[in-house]
């Protein structure tokens, strides 16, 4: 089968290309790239990195071997890896600043996770090189002022974002946003709609097909106990209610505990929370970075987290306020009202 080539672009800061050689899998699992679809671009810009999907033969001669399976030399890494039932092989070269090429061969379980496992971290890696910083959090805009709600899972990032959109804000991203100098850029990956963040507002806008899919996911969640989010593109669901960029106004760090409590904190303190937040989000890619850094501790790759801290520090310099917000484990109207008030303060 002929390889399928697709171009993607994130605010024209990062352009990348995916060359899909794995014909069979992409026919069987046509929705694997749902996380990336909204970034597809017609323009064929010079890519910052290229991902080749499908079987490949690694060029792993002349390498140092770590942990019996990582083949590493200057500017090159090859390994086979697995997580639960997912198995994949990965070859990366050119991450020291040259032409970054990545080959991935994966089994169907890993295929479904490819954007999360490898492609997203590659985007972050390139953003980082260009002085931007990815933030694990949701973001909304009003009057060209952006508000970021950073936090781990269970913190209510999506819930807050969707509720604020209902109150007249526009969405920048419900899972990630990008910091670029004084601006917050959108990162509109699909919304993960689950039982607890489905508001009537969203439900009204969902198409019949999406509603059925959502019910099916709810059902399989009851049977298996695993959480299945229904992925819906924000560009269609919230048409006209999204924004590309805005100036950073304030950052909220969400910590779910018992009841609502707000505290103003310093920029340094917020950054100290944000780094482990992003590290936890980077599994298992962080392992490849560590394996390479073990052998080349002064490389571009090893400097990733130091650079991340610098980029954050620079970008957050423009913010007017930082808040550490303790929220209850389940959101009530009162909490949402309080947060909405905080985000409306000038």
């Amino acid at each position, binding site marked *: 089968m002929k390889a399928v080539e697709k171009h993607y672009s994130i605010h024209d800061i990062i352009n990348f290309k995916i060359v899909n050689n794995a014909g069979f899998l992409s026919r069987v699992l046509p929705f694997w790239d749902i996380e990336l679809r909204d970034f597809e671009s017609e323009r064929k810009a010079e890519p910052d990195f290229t991902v080749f999907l499908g079987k490949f033969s690694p060029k792993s001669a*002349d390498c*140092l*071997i770590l942990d*019996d399976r990582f083949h590493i030399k200057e500017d090159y890494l090859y390994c086979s890896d697995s997580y*639960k039932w997912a198995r994949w092989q990965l070859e990366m070269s050119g991450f020291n600043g040259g032409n970054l090429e990545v080959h991935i061969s994966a089994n169907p379980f890993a295929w479904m996770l490819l954007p999360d496992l490898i492609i997203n971290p590659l985007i972050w890696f390139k953003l980082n090189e260009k002085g931007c910083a990815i933030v694990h959090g949701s973001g909304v805009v009003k009057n060209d002022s952006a508000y970021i709600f950073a936090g781990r899972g269970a913190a209510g990032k999506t819930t807050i974002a969707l509720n604020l959109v209902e109150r007249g804000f526009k969405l920048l991203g419900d899972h990630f946003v990008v910091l670029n100098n004084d601006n917050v850029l959108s990162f509109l990956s699909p919304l993960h709609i689950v039982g607890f963040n489905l508001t009537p507002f969203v439900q009204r806008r969902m198409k019949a097909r999406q509603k059925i899919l959502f019910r099916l996911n709810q059902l399989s969640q009851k049977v298996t106990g695993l959480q299945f989010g229904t992925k819906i593109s924000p560009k269609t669901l919230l048409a006209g209610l999204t924004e590309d960029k805005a100036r950073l106004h304030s950052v909220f760090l969400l910590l*779910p505990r018992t009841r609502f409590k707000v505290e103003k904190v310093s920029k340094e303190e917020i950054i100290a929370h944000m780094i482990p937040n992003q*590290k936890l989000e980077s599994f298992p890619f962080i392992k490849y970075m560590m394996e390479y850094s073990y052998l080349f501790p002064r490389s571009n790759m090893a400097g990733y987290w130091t650079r991340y801290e610098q980029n954050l520090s620079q970008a957050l310099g423009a913010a007017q306020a930082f808040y550490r917000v303790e929220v209850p484990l389940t959101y009530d109207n009162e909490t949402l009202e309080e947060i909405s008030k905080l985000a409306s303060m000038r």
Partner: protein
Amino acid sequence: MRQVQNYNIHDILKFQICSDKKFGFRALQNLRFSCFQVEQVEKPDIVLNIGKFTPSNENCYLVDYKYYVRDNYFYCRDSEGKVSWELEIKGLEQGDIIINLHLSKRFHMQPVDLLRIPLFFPQAFLLRIIEHKLSTKGYFLTHSAAVSKDNQAYLLSGRAGSFKTSLCMDFVRRGGFTCLGDDRAILQQDRVFGFPVNSAIFEFMVKRLPDETHFGVQKQVQFVTGYLRGKYGKDRGNGAQSGKLKAMLLITRSNRAKNNKQVNFEPLPQSSLGGIVDSILISNRLEDFSGMGMPGFGISSAPFLRYMLAYSFVFPDSLVATWERDMAGKLRNTLENIPVYMVEIPPDYSPDTFDQIHQFIARNC
């Protein structure tokens, strides 16, 4: 019936393993730390309780739907591969550490797993907690092998598969060295304290095998039967030893054609000291990915590293979040006057590899 086993590491750290069930192979349960076992300890720094418990996880921060974090406290239920567990740690930052661990059965466990997992899995967590507790006392549990002769110690650092164990075996058999540990050692300033993990297995290997790659199923059975009859692991003296650090070798296996048989030595200049320290610390964290119990448990996502990151996310100023930075400074001071070499060895182990390293040490250190 409650069963308690006591351990003392060089009087630096004392710990206790308590289990509420009597295991069939009591002798195997302390295999990992057997050379530190003592009759009695006063005021243990760490107590590991294995068995069902009721968590006291109220008023906690919830991270990622499953980690419960509070000042000095961590709790979660987790599962991966063949193992499913519930873990509670009290005293992460101050006071004595109490770990409660409960393992539950999973549907795809084989009979041999029912034996192996309770024996080896809790010790893997314990090892990581020992590293943490030692660091709060100013000691560094490094992922390196250590050998010594005439009170002079050499650290052989390397990732899994760099034949640390095979080299140690030959250092003992053919070089007349003492092995302070084939996988870990404790470092404080320029003092190296032995930390032999699974020392009985190492003793068996030294006596019966040419190198570590020969430790297959048949030999494992041979070892277990021998161990249960008390043939190995009786000598607990080597755990108590220490030496003065003379040199450190960072060993990596390589498949470069040019050094098919040749071992390559490259002295690392003082200017790269910062990088060396980073590598040593990264090596410890990489162990969180690969060192969880045994291969075959199917755990590769570094659960403990994730737990500590979750704790650091809530408390970024805590010891858990900052100890690595402090340790980097200490390691820098230690290694300032110690020669460090990058050593590339051939992909397959042969006694020739040992000979070249042995000669190099004799000549240069």
